């Protein structure tokens, strides 16, 4: 039985090649960029937020499953543990962004360049009114504290989970019962703090705009991306001869989760969009107006890839139970949600940069012109993403190689092995 995952030289090389592509893309981007390095730093923010959020969501769903007494997922739970242990790396990435607020090496957030804000302009007045929350102290402090708490709880859960493997079978399942406490704790903590961080990290790039739904919307996008990666990693490990207990039954349920949460994401997308469209309040519609006028490809592709495709393809049972079709959907939807975050971040950052580089006052009329790396992702942005992906895989695989992939003493193990849909 192949239970100890070995992170092979070939896999390491693969990760390093991806990271190499990433570094190359970032270097090229940095030297060909505008004076504010807008494209470079927006790519950095986009990918850091995306992968940190995926790690958080693995922790959140893992904890939700423990709290809900779920049994079926045990045979691949070590994949989730690997993913959520990316959190400290994510914290470092986000701290680089935070450092930029203090040292002014990026200009991603309009609210941070307070000297460029004109209190006589209504738009700027609104942003100045938010600086009690949108400031570098809260951004840095919130990031350190909240991601720190997530990581702390992640290490507790992982520690207990691995410790359970190495002990005599405990009829009281005391380790599992302790895990329940940590798992229950992260649910409300994660629920509140993730909203706080999404407002700071993502929503505030459009500093004047607001939507109460936004935090849940972005979180749903993270969740679907995480489910897609889980399916991909699990299938890969299976292909390498690990996780032999994982069967088509587990695959089927992963497919159901991708299907269901793609619909859930669409539900949140629609609710947010429709309510803003229907009420037609200028301060709110500007967000979608801009995206529909200047970023139409991404705007419509977002719905096609993240809703229509998984909805139509995963509707059938058979597509969820086959590696080929499930992996195809998981990969495309993963990229789809990466694009979703691209669309959440890039337009706002671009406007901030234009605001800072042009003389204040010349408001934009009509659609913004095509700009690679903003209107659609270019090679440099895709290369940067591959670099982050390489780093992510490297961290996740290193973590998975540190403990058995087979949680021998988990109380639900037998249920999971015999899982039948």
């Amino acid at each position, binding site marked *: 039985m192949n239970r100890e995952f070995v992170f092979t030289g070939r896999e390491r090389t693969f990760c390093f090649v991806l990271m190499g592509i990433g570094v190359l893309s970032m270097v090229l981007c940095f030297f060909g960029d505008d004076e504010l390095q807008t494209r470079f730093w927006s790519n950095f923010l986009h990918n850091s937020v995306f992968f940190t959020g995926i790690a958080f969501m693995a922790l959140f769903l893992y904890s939700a499953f423990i*709290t*809900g*007494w779920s*049994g*079926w997922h045990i045979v691949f739970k070590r994949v989730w543990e690997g993913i959520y242990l990316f959190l400290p790396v994510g914290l470092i990435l986000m701290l680089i962004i935070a450092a930029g607020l203090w040292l002014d090496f990026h200009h991603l957030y309009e609210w941070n360049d307070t000297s460029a804000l004109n209190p006589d302009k209504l738009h700027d*007045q*609104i942003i100045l*009114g*938010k600086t009690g*929350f949108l400031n570098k102290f809260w951004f840095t402090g919130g990031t350190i504290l909240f991601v720190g708490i997530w990581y702390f709880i992640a290490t507790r859960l992982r520690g207990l989970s691995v410790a359970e493997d190495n002990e005599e*079978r405990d*009829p009281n*399942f005391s380790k*599992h019962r302790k895990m329940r406490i940590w798992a*229950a704790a992260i*649910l*409300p903590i994660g*629920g*509140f703090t993730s*909203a706080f961080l999404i*407002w700071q990290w993502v929503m505030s790039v459009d500093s*004047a705009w*607001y*939507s*109460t*739904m*936004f*935090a*849940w919307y972005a979180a749903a996008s993270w969740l679907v991306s995480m489910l897609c990666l889980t399916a991909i990693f699990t299938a890969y490990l299976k292909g390498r001869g690990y996780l032999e207990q994982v069967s088509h039954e587990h695959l089927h349920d992963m497919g159901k989760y991708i299907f269901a949460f793609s*619909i859930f994401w669409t*539900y*949140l997308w629609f*609710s*947010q969009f*429709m*309510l*803003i469209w*229907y*009420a*037609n*309040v200028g*301060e709110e519609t500007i967000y979608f107006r801009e995206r529909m006028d200047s970023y139409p490809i991404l705007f419509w592709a977002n719905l096609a890839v993240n809703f229509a495709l998984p909805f139509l393809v995963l509707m059938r049972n058979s597509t969820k139970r086959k590696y080929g079709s499930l992996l195809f959907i998981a990969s495309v939807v993963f990229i789809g949600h990466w694009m979703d975050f691209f669309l959440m971040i890039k337009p706002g950052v671009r406007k901030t940069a234009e605001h800072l580089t042009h003389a204040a006052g010349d408001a934009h009329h009509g659609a913004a012109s095509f700009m690679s790396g903003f209107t659609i992702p270019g090679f440099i942005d895709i290369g940067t993403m591959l670099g982050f992906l390489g780093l992510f895989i490297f961290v996740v695989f290193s973590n998975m190689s540190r403990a058995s992939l087979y949680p021998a003493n988990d*109380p*639900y*193990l*037998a*249920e999971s*092995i*015999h*899982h*039948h849909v």
Partner: protein
Amino acid sequence: MSGAPISPIRQPLVTGSKTYHQITEDLCGPTEKAPSKAWVIAFLISVAFLSLGIACILWTIWKGIGSWNLNRTIGWGWDITNFVWWIGIGHAGTLISAILLLFRQKWRTGVNRAAEAMTIFAVLCAALFPGIHVGRMWVVYFFFPYPNTRGPLWPNFNSPLLWDLFAISTYFTISLLFWYTGLVPDFATVRDRAKGFRRKLYNLLSFGWTGSAKHWQRWESLSLVLAGIATPLVLSVHTIVSFDFATSVIPGWHTTIFPPYFVAGAIFSGFAMVQTLMLITRKVLNLQDYITLEHIESMNKVILLTGTIVGVAYLTELFIAWYSGYVYEQFAFFNRAFGPYWWAYFGMMSCNLLIPQVFWWKKYRRSIVITFAMSIFVNIGMWFERFVIIATTLARDYLPSSWSWYVPTFVEVGIFLGTLGIFFTLYLIFTRVAPVVAIAEIKHILKSSGDQYASGHAEKHRTGQSLVVEDHHH
């Protein structure tokens, strides 16, 4: 899947080492005996309230909507508050039947029947309010979009109020079908024990069910299809109710988080009402072996979860109102918390967000007294939530000269009490004519979750590591 292994960490869901026959006896029993004195008293009280409600509704129709205390500023008061409150309560049944089925939560079998019945009765009570609040109830068919000769009078398809009509009628239809489908095999069980006219009646109700393999096969396919339809419907109903408010530009109503937050609140209040009813029902009908502390604890966990989700939404709204920099939005929330109706906001926050946090302690989740008290708190809190959203918001509009204050008349209060009467009357009748716990479904999980079987699993698990192999063809 009764053959698959069950984790020893799970608690049994049917206690008392029941046999199949005992289950039939226990669950059919209440429909076969004469009603108890308690039942008769409860029924009479319910019917009294129901009569009061009908009198007040007739008075409203006779006298006109002026018999309510609504005014030009506050156009919606108790009517729509009660409507949303009842619709919310009507969410638990289908959630338990459809969504918990998808998540394979076996504990749903103990409570799904009664919860579904409750759903149907609650939706009936809810549907009453849009009907009577138009004032001229005799032309209420104007709502319905069909070709007519009323000239330019045509329902406005752009209006969420019309979407609501469709959402609720669809939801009601599917919930009713789902509930009835589940009842068919159980009605047949009652029939098989009955004699004379009663036997004929239950035979009719069970569509001549014989329990053949073919019948079960069709029954399972139908249940699955209905569950599939019901799942998006549960989410859609309260989503569309929230659109009634959120599509407007009224500060405090127009907020994008409303759809999922209303759904979470609906589940929250629905589960609270299920707790209220089930705690009484299990005691009166002696169903403690079927609705165990495990069931109660699981439902309390759902209450804690959804209450906290609602709490996140409350605080999100409050925070974003400040963050938006939009003075009217800021005022709307300031008014909710510190305006003339501050007590409603305080009641909502404490009953829905703060007090349910006691369920973090296992001891309280498993306490009947605390659970019952909590279920009442949540019912009150969720009523306040709708009152805060509707009346508090409307009372302070853009012009201080039109600010107003609203107290319901006895007619409005009477109609609300009347819907409680309707609800409990129907529920009490239900407990007399149908098994309140789904017999067929309890029998289905007996071999995997009955205490005599579950403990067997645990023993085996404790004595050896080779459970995986041993239990395969158990």
